[in-house]
């Protein structure tokens, strides 16, 4: 039956001059590709090596590669329709590898696929299916980019149009060859049309964002992994990203891999509320810098291409890094730029200086006297941790000094007492260093992390539970730079484990849970707080929830930096939460809690009630 189906028509014989011409064109095309691409590659390779880079364990890299590159899962999940269209273009490229190789080999009489032979024929048909899907896909993407024009894609560019056209032509010239006679003039014309398109495509790549075709598989495979992993400083002259000389190979590779899709900016709370910060521009700024200067340059990175103001508007919510389909890690870059500015004293900000001075000398980010914590512990007869209890209840700055934070701690204490969990609080605590870590103050962060690690060891702490996702993250991941931290969990994880022993509260509340960035994207904890909140009423979801949750505006040290420009992030999110019609907003982070408290206070009447999940379940306990 197959014999009756049309098959791919190709010219069989090539005149010497034709083969020679083709060979010359290949050389020209590869040369035109390599000239700019070689420059880029040299810039990447000339960048400083990543001191903390380890190829192993390689399993995670292979997994990411298969999932994100081969299966295009991230591209599809975050933007299903265009994602699928993109996936088909990608898969068609893969399917075409052999076809194209054979296509070129034909010109030199070295073809290894034979249209008359069944296996090759089947392969051609499979490639044809992908070609058709790809042609439709690229057409769809073209319409989206040039007519639907979502604002995140940015300005129209000739490059994108040209590439779409070339890809479309490649597919059409392949498909059309099924409908002409083998060895006919038409077959020869199609062969040349296909070939010329291909040879024209290659040199376009390094000049456009289609560079990601070549680079992004490497970017994804080589990425640091984890989330917002901040590399340790290496040596006495490393202060973070100060100038070109500080850019590492990973940073440079990532800068050149950006495909300008704008997913990062689309989800960025700072950009969405009228701030200068645009995560895509941060990445493209590095690229611009590298194009103009060399990776050995002393020219400051914060200057012509990236603004200091923008770098310090980031809440470190991680939405950008989470979204990026090509494995760009924005947070090490943004925090790297902040480190460069803070560690050298270039950042001048009254609020920032006040926070740093408070933490250089004192114990907490709120600048309060440590005796205030002592009084709180004493007044509420919180047991002191002495090494015999199972849990060390970590108060954190908010839990120890902030009135609302204290209420959350006390609610959790009630639940822990009810459950008969043994716990104690440390006699003294210092800030975990979260705000200084995110603002790039390595000096103070190191002091705090080391002092805390020492106190953990002295007090023989094995397991920490904390109401603050920022503390949890900083203890678990960031302290690692200076020692081995004890196990730590967030109270939502603790409470979820004991959910069966907690009484449901039956007062018909509709509850919307706000995913804190540092619990969700940073830690991957989404279900536990919902499970806990569900004990206290019916859950509804906000339009942006779980991985796509929209920041409260407090992270990255920003809650200490005074008034923001543009709209307040917290107000935007509070309005979104209120619009769900829920009468309770459940929070799981003391920073979210204060931000929303202020936002709801500004809304006045009719604002939903705001409670931490610990407070929600504590209501159900017998007095």
């Amino acid at each position: 039956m197959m014999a009756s189906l049309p098959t791919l028509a190709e010219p069989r014989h090539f005149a010497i001059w034709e083969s020679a011409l083709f060979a010359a064109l290949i050389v020209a095309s590869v040369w035109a590709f390599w000239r700019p691409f070689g420059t880029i590659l040299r810039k990447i390779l000339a960048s400083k090596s990543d001191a903390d880079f380890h190829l192993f364990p390689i399993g995670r890299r292979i997994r990411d590669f298969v999932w994100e590159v081969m299966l295009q899962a991230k591209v599809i999940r975050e933007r299903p329709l265009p994602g699928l269209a993109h996936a088909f273009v990608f898969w068609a490229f893969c399917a075409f590898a052999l076809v194209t190789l054979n296509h070129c080999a034909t010109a030199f009489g070295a073809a290894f696929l034979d249209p008359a032979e069944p296996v090759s024929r089947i392969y051609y048909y499979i490639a044809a299916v992908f070609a058709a899907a790809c042609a439709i896909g690229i057409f769809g993407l073209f319409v989206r980019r040039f007519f639907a024009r979502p604002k995140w894609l940015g300005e129209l560019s000739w490059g994108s149009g040209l590439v779409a056209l070339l890809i479309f032509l490649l597919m059409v010239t392949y498909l059309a060859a099924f409908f002409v006679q083998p060895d006919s003039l038409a077959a020869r014309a199609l062969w040349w049309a296909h070939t010329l398109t291909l040879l024209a495509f290659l040199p376009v790549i390094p000049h456009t964002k289609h560079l990601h075709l070549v680079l992004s598989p490497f970017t994804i495979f080589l990425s640091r992994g984890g989330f917002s992993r901040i590399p340790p400083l290496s040596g006495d002259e490393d202060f973070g990203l100060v100038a070109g000389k500080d850019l590492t190979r990973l940073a440079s590779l990532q800068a050149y891999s950006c495909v300008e899709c704008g997913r990062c900016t689309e989800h960025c709370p700072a950009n969405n509320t009228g701030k200068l910060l645009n995560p895509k521009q941060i990445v493209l700024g590095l690229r611009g810098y590298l194009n103009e200067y060399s990776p050995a340059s002393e020219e400051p990175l914060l200057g012509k291409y990236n603004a200091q103001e923008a770098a310090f508007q980031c809440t470190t919510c991680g939405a950008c890094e989470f979204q990026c389909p090509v494995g760009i890690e924005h947070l090490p870059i943004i925090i790297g730029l902040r480190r460069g500015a803070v560690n050298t004293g270039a950042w001048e900000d009254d609020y920032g200086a006040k926070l740093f001075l408070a933490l250089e000398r004192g114990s907490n980010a709120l600048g309060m006297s440590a005796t205030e914590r002592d009084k709180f512990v004493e007044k509420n007869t919180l047991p002191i941790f002495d090494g015999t209890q199972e849990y060390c209840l970590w108060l954190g700055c908010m839990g120890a000094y902030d009135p609302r934070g204290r209420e959350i701690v006390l609610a959790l204490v009630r639940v822990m007492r009810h459950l008969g969990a043994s716990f104690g609080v440390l006699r003294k605590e210092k800030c975990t260093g979260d705000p200084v870590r995110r603002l790039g103050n390595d000096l103070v962060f190191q002091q705090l992390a080391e002092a805390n690690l020492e106190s953990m060891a002295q007090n023989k702490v094995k397991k920490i539970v904390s109401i603050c996702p920022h503390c949890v993250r900083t203890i678990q991941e960031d302290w690692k730079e200076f020692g081995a931290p004890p196990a730590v969990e967030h109270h939502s994880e603790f409470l979820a484990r004991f959910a069966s022993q907690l009484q449901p509260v039956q007062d018909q509340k509709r509850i919307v849970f706000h995913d804190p960035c540092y619990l969700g994207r940073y830690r991957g904890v989404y279900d536990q707080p919902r499970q806990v909140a569900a004990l206290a009423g019916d859950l509804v979801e906000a339009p942006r929830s779980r991985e796509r949750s929209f920041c409260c505006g407090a992270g990255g040290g920003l809650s200490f930096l005074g008034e923001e420009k543009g709209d307040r992030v917290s107000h935007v999110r509070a309005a979104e939460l209120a619009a769900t019609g829920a009468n309770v907003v459940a929070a799981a982070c003391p920073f979210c809690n204060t931000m929303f408290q202020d936002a709801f206070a500004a809304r006045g009447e009719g604002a939903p009630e705001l409670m931490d999940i610990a407070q929600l379940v504590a209501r159900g306990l017998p007095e």
Partner: protein
Amino acid sequence: MKIVVAIKQVPDRDAPVRIAPGGKWIDETDLQWAMNEPDAYALEEALQLKEKNGGEVVALSAGPERTGQTIREALAKGADRAIQVVCDDLGTRDALGVAKLLAAAIKPENPDLVLTGLQSEDIGLGQTGVIAAELLGLPHATLILHVEKTDAGVTVKRELEEGWFQSIEMPLPAVLTMQSGGTKLRYATLMGIKRAKTKELKSVTAAELGADAAPVVVLEQIALPKKQKSTQILPGSPKEAAAALIEKLKTEARVL
């Protein structure tokens, strides 16, 4: 302009203060230490003067070994070099004894300006700076918020009471004792700390300076302030009670 900043290391504000046995000084075990805040402002003012007018900032501190930490902090914030007067008896020296140490260390430096905090956060005598000025034979001014270099010397902004300020022209060299809050302090940076390691830190002993310690004022005893709360109900008609309240506010609380 060469500026010497005299700095004292004091117990950190959050540190638990206990009285040492004998009741003459505090128990120094387990204490954290920090730079005396008015001295931190003196250092900041010196650094700003240097940034504007050029010159050199020399940090000077007297105290035991641990004082080195505060001196390195001063170097990290931008002082060019430092002198540490190593002495273990700082707590038993009176203001004159300390001023003698400082003056002896300052003299060979021949600075244009000496800045120090107007008082220390520990014992708060507020005399060391002015006595040192006297020993050095230099003019001085106290409670200074801001210093501006002029052709003839300096113009200083001095704090008076009730929100009044005084502006004074002074010749150089001079000694100024600085009030907190006149400017904004800078934060310490990693780069500063790293650079500080390569800066000169000269160490001299009290004996080498030939500054005797015999105190003229002896500290007899120190005590923690007593905390007390008391409630009084003022009897009588509202009118009488109000009159009694005003009387008490005037004579006892002295807030009126």
